[in-house]
């Protein structure tokens, strides 16, 4: 009895090790967790990349949405998963900002993960309601300095990229506006189009078509070069506010302890996916471009995460906002 049990255990163990061995990885579907709701911009980026990587890896990458608590729940889930390469995380800039925004996290930001690589950097745009008085960024800054908290600034809630972008803008011009938080950028955009609030800073994914449709006006992009889908919108530096740079960068992570061979395989697959014409085209529609091969690597992602944690910590601490 005991003998047959031991034999069964051995067989099970063999199967277990078999699936974990790096050479034939992956032998079953891989789960890629997005720590946000389905249908959002991050989810869209993930599904496009996952679809392309599935073709390359020969196994389906199943996208699972585990939203909640600003993305920290999903990240926590991955940190606690088996480091066998079958659970991955695609997370954005919040990975870095959560380290300061949350005083208590269910994972160790820098120590809890292996890095696969950067995916894309989605630019942001500083926008205002269509009938707002200032014509360009310079006039807008003067207007905000003159009217201070009479100017309302919409964002998608504490810790959201639109919130951080606003914090950075206000710290750059050393003037406070009145912040109006919403549950997500959707309702915030509704009120901006409806002229209920004055301004907002949001990713091109959400703003491009409203700008093109004339429903809102754009003052600047938060990038170093102009965004191809919005050729008429100047960069912040061109418009007179150098250093006002924010992008929503996305990276793929695996739980700490995932074997280096598997990570290498995933990085290579990611690099291929980022050159897939369909991915490139869809990314362009979103107003973004895939990162280069050099950036779709573990080293580049680790460096980005570390530098972004250092960059945002003082901004968040100075504003005194915490999400818990």
């Amino acid at each position, binding site marked *: 009895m005991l003998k047959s049990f031991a034999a069964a255990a051995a067989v099970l163990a063999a199967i277990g090790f078999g699936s974990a061995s790096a050479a034939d990885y992956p032998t079953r579907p891989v789960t890629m967790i997005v720590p946000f*709701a389905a*249908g959002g*911009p991050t989810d869209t980026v993930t599904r496009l990349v996952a679809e392309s990587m599935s073709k390359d890896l020969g196994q389906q990458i199943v996208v699972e949405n585990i939203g909640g608590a600003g993305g920290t729940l999903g990240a926590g889930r991955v940190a606690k998963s088996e480091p066998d390469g079958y659970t991955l995380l695609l997370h954005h800039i919040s990975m870095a900002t959560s380290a300061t925004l949350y005083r208590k996290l269910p994972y160790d930001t820098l120590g809890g993960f292996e890095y696969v690589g950067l995916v894309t950097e989605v630019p942001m745009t500083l926008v205002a309601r269509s009938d707002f008085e200032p014509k360009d960024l310079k006039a807008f800054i003067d207007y905000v300095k003159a009217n201070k908290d009479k100017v309302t600034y919409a964002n998608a809630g504490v810790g959201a990229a639109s919130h951080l972008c606003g914090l950075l803008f206000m710290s750059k011009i050393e003037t406070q506006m*009145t912040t109006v938080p919403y549950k997500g950028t959707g309702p915030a955009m*509704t009120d901006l189009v409806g002229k209920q609030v004055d301004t907002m800073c949001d990713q091109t994914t959400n703003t491009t078509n409203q700008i*093109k449709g004339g429903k809102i006006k754009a003052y600047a992009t938060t990038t170093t070069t102009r965004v191809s889908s919005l050729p008429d919108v100047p960069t912040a530096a061109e418009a007179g506010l150098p250093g006002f740079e924010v992008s929503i960068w996305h990276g793929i992570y695996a739980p700490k302890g995932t074997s280096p061979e598997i990570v290498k395989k995933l990085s290579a697959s990611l690099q291929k996916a980022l050159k897939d014409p369909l991915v490139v085209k*869809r990314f362009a529609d979103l107003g973004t471009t895939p990162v280069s091969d050099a950036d779709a690597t573990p080293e580049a992602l680790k460096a980005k995460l570390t530098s972004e944690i250092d960059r945002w910590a003082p901004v968040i601490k100075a504003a005194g906002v915490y999400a818990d």
Partner: protein
Amino acid sequence: MELLDNLYIGFQASLAPVNLFYCFLGVLLGTLIGVLPGIGPTATIAMLLPITFGLKPETSLIMLAGIYYGAQYGGSTTAILINLPGESSSAVTAIDGYQMAKQGRAGPALATAALGSFFAGSVATVLVAVFAGPLTEIALQFGPAEYFSLIFLGLISSVALAHGSVIKALAMIVLGLLFGLVGTDVTSGAQRFTLGIPEISDKLEFVAVAIGVFGLAEILRNLENEHDRDVMVTKITGLLPSKEDFKAMVGPVLRGTALGSALGILPGGGAILSSFAAYTVEKKISKHPERFGKGAIEGVAGPESANNAGAQTSFIPMLTLGIPANAVMALMVGAMIIQGIQPGPNVAVEQPSLFWGVITSMWIGNLMLVLLNLPLIGLWVRLLTIPYTILFPAILVFCSIGVFSVNSNVFDLYTVAFFGFIGYVLVKLGCEPAPLLLGFVLGPMIEENLRRAMTISRGDWTVFFTRPLSATLLVISVLVLLVVFLPSVRKKREEVFVEED
């Protein structure tokens, strides 16, 4: 005649065989998942999103839209048969629909829901086609102050949801408001009543709460008096509504359609209010309000029409502005982006066959739903003849799968258990779950909009009275209050409520 041209383009797209097929697949899937308690359209569309990658954009949107309004149909089926609303809108249908089922009138209740929904869906589709542009402009007039006043009116009127003691109904609304406060405060980011549990740091999951207080509590109660169920099974009368039923149905369906269409276009919860509002109106104008809560067909016809009309018109802000009105619309926007279409004000111009194809497919889909659902009624009703000892474990399993599928979160199952217990205790105390659910949904919304309006006005309270739309809504609220507390009306109310306690 631009409209006719547009409709022609639309029907050309939606009547293409491949699109007809996927439209049918969508409404069929929608009906099925709507019938399974807890699995809502959001989870299904999220799961099916990858499948639509390979389809043409209009085909995939037609199918996803079909799932959405198909689920609205299917959701009322479980609400009526086993008191299990999977969506906030069908919570209202459960009140009188389930009572009808208990009296052996499940067939007429289901038929009423299907026919009312079809009529409402057809009217709302025409509205979307003709008035999408101008209606969007009206919806944009609704700022935080207007939303506050609208929800205020909703809460004031919601006392009518109760068919027992008014005090108990108010207590349930307040309890619901308190549960609604659990989670992150939008304005400050502070956590409230989360007891340090990360899973509820955003909010309590609606589906889990609804399944708990309605479904689980009902199962517990049924297990207590098993013989009640046998009575209900043997008494099944006709499957289709009688002549009198049809007569009673017409008014509520028309009013529900009007209310639902109007509220559905408001991004941010208008659709949730519509079925609650329709029920309130029907009860208020009924000559026999005492029948409500005991199987009044008007209590099924009104809200069902309203929620289907609302589901249809909630496409308006998504199609004309690219701004999603609810979670399902957010997914549709995601699907469009993945297909390489940028949702926004330009879609109607740049993609006419997509825009009008989706709109016309809604009407076709609604027709399919009626043809699909009327024959199914016999089958659903026979489900009730399954012995409860077999039925209830199956319901529990499906509920658990459904709740889990929303967030892949085990904690939500504990939430169901907790609210099941609460719901059972409330039933024992003679309190009703519907007002609790309303408070739970509307509480956070009214707080959010109140604080947002005050932030924008920089602390000026008069903003609620100086904005004409908001002021009008508040005046109506006061009128409703007066009607409730006027001596003559109150006397009538007391007669109405007296037999319950």
